[in-house]
């Protein structure tokens, strides 16, 4: 009986993290039709910036309680600087060209950022877990859990709702939707499409950095975190149907719970879980859970 509780809790924890790291990716794809490989690097930048800022913050003697705001600040800092930079300087040049070509560009960028990070932060591992420890523990079915991961769940839900609300309720959202529907027409009807793109990409970048920044306190931030995270984000986004936020949420839950189940019931399958889910989902639904095939007008 407890076992089920554990699977549920651990599953949700992992799912929250998965959702947080894939949200930005799926959003950017939804708007710009760009599969952003540099997403992982933005995540890494967020993680490094988050840990180093919190470190300075705490060394300066400020209370840990406020460090969460610092993490948020770090995410915004990265997102608002690197995001527009990448979009304006590089992506801008090859929109509307082949999807794969843009993907390739972001891959080259991610290669470079990997070393840029190394040059800025060095290779020494950052383990800044004060924000993680500060929230203390809570007992669930007789087992102690750190509270921090549940904060992560909260942030994931908040971020998801925020993005969803922005898309559904705000003018910017409606602009974005119109651009998704038809770039030409919305451009013709006076929408500043390039600007929408910049905003959208920046928002995606912030989300990526947010994932990194709030993951930082629970991991040792070392070179290579980008590579590890990007394929997970791809998988979750693909399962949900690229571009679909609710899809990413369901996908994350699916993978999260299945992985937790694997750990608790069949540890040998841990490695396989996510790709098995992905293969099965895509076999049953070729465009992901919430994806739609584009029908050609004739």
């Amino acid at each position, binding site marked *: 009986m*407890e*076992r089920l509780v*554990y699977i549920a*809790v*651990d*599953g949700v*924890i*992992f799912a929250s*993290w998965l959702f947080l790291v894939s949200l930005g990716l799926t959003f950017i794809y939804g708007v710009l039709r760009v599969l952003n490989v540099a997403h992982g690097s933005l995540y890494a930048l967020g993680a490094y910036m988050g*840990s*180093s800022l919190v*470190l300075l913050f705490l060394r300066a003697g400020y209370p840990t309680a406020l460090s969460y705001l610092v993490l948020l600040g770090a995410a915004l800092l990265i997102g608002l600087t690197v995001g527009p930079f990448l979009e304006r300087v590089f992506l801008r040049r090859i929109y509307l060209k082949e999807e794969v070509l843009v993907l390739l560009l972001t891959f080259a960028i991610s290669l470079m950022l*990997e*070393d840029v990070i*190394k040059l800025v932060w060095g*290779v*020494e*591992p*950052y*383990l*800044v*877990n*004060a924000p*993680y*420890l500060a929230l*203390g*523990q809570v007992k669930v079915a*007789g*087992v*102690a*859990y*750190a509270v921090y*991961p549940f904060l992560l769940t909260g942030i994931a839900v908040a971020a998801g709702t925020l993005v969803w609300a922005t898309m559904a309720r705000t003018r910017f959202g409606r602009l974005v939707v119109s651009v998704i529907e038809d770039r030409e027409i919305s451009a013709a009807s006076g929408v500043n499409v390039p600007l929408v793109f910049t905003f959208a990409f920046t928002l995606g970048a912030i989300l990526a950095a947010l994932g990194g920044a709030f*993951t930082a306190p*629970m*991991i*040792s*931030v*070392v*070179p*290579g*975190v980008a*590579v*590890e*995270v990007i394929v997970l984000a791809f998988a979750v986004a693909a399962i949900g149907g690229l571009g679909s936020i609710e899809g990413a949420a369901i996908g994350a839950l699916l993978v999260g719970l299945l*992985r*937790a189940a694997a*750990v*608790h019931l069949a*540890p*040998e399958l*841990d*490695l396989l879980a996510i790709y098995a889910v992905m293969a099965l989902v895509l076999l049953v639904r070729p465009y992901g859970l919430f994806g739609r095939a584009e029908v050609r007008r004739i």
Partner: protein
Amino acid sequence: MSRRSSALMIPLLLAVAGSLLAVDQTSAQPPGAPKELKIGVVSFLSGPGAPHSGIPTRQGAELLIEALNAGQVPPPHDKRGIGGVPIKAVYTDEAGPVDRQVTEFRRLVLDEKVNLVVGYISSANCPAIAPVADELRTLTVFSICGTQRVFEDAEYKYVFRTRAHQIIDALGIARYVLAVKPDLKTIAGINQDYAWGRDSWATFSDTILQVKPDVRVVDALWPKLFAGDYSAEITKLLAAKPAVIFSSLWGGDLETFVAQATPRGLFDQSLVVFTVADNLLVPGPGRFVPTRTVFGARGLYGPLTPDTPLSRWFGGEFRKRHGYFPIHDPFNVAASILGAKAAFEKALAATGRWPTVEEVVKAFAHLEYEGAAGPIKMTLGKGHQAVEPVGFGIVKSFDPATHEVTLEQVKTFRVECVNPPAGVKSVDWIRQGFPGAVCP
């Protein structure tokens, strides 16, 4: 570790001594000697392998090579460079697919024209490099590479490994556990899902069950490499409440696991044993080593380092440069370079002229020499694979300022206890109940 403090002044004296000796050493150029000896040094300079293994390895090599060229290394390695010939190092990255590594090795030998290659950390690379080294007739000294199979499943003429293989870690720590917990009932394992993790867990559990068959294995967890989240694994271990939890996690994964497990009280509930705990001593923000865990350093390194003139000097110099006492990786690469040096100089002494690579490898086989942290014996694999003692202790306290742990109940296991005898495969040796093992 009080003795460390005394270690600090010694290098000064040595430096002075070295510079005095220097004069007559330059003249001691053996006939036929090249004007410099090029060494390729391969280790992870990027990716997750860099912070705790690759970079420390490079730092160790840099330190030793500079000192050798300056003739500042204490005896018995006080002769300048290698056989009086200055060393030039070429550093390269071990990251990248295996074919890239083979290409890189060939480039080092055929393009950079290095005389020998030292390094390699990944068990996946060494078995790929070894045959190429023989093909190119290039002396190659592996500094780490966990797997025992390199020399147990094959034979190489030009390839050596100057540290013990994976067996001593897991087997040794098993013996340690049995020593400190004679009434052991249950064990569990959490290891990365790849060869190193598999081998380590197999060695550990086999050894335990061999010695104490009534022990119950309650769980074996296999998180993927660089997983980043261990909540589920920790939950399961907390629920299963095994007496002892074995882990061969290293690098960032180890730190992440420790960071997530400590607040949840895993280390209060079970005795958790880490074979690569010394990775936690690599400096960086927020480092900490959990107390009441069993600390392993893949041999007698870090806090377990035996006090020898060389270890005192190397440790002191390394600390001066990098702010912490070296873990196993710098010591291992130093041992590789010193091994090559010893082999060259032995061959040199035998022939009286600069030796051919064949003469060097002949001299290297079965060599016994002074490593950077105690003697190295090239006993196994027809004299190509070193054997080492190993030691463990329980963490009493950790000082983040000096990056040092204080250990209690320290036990070391002599070479004959944790290394299989020559010609016997480790796995068989364990299955047969360690014939010929000599343990305290």
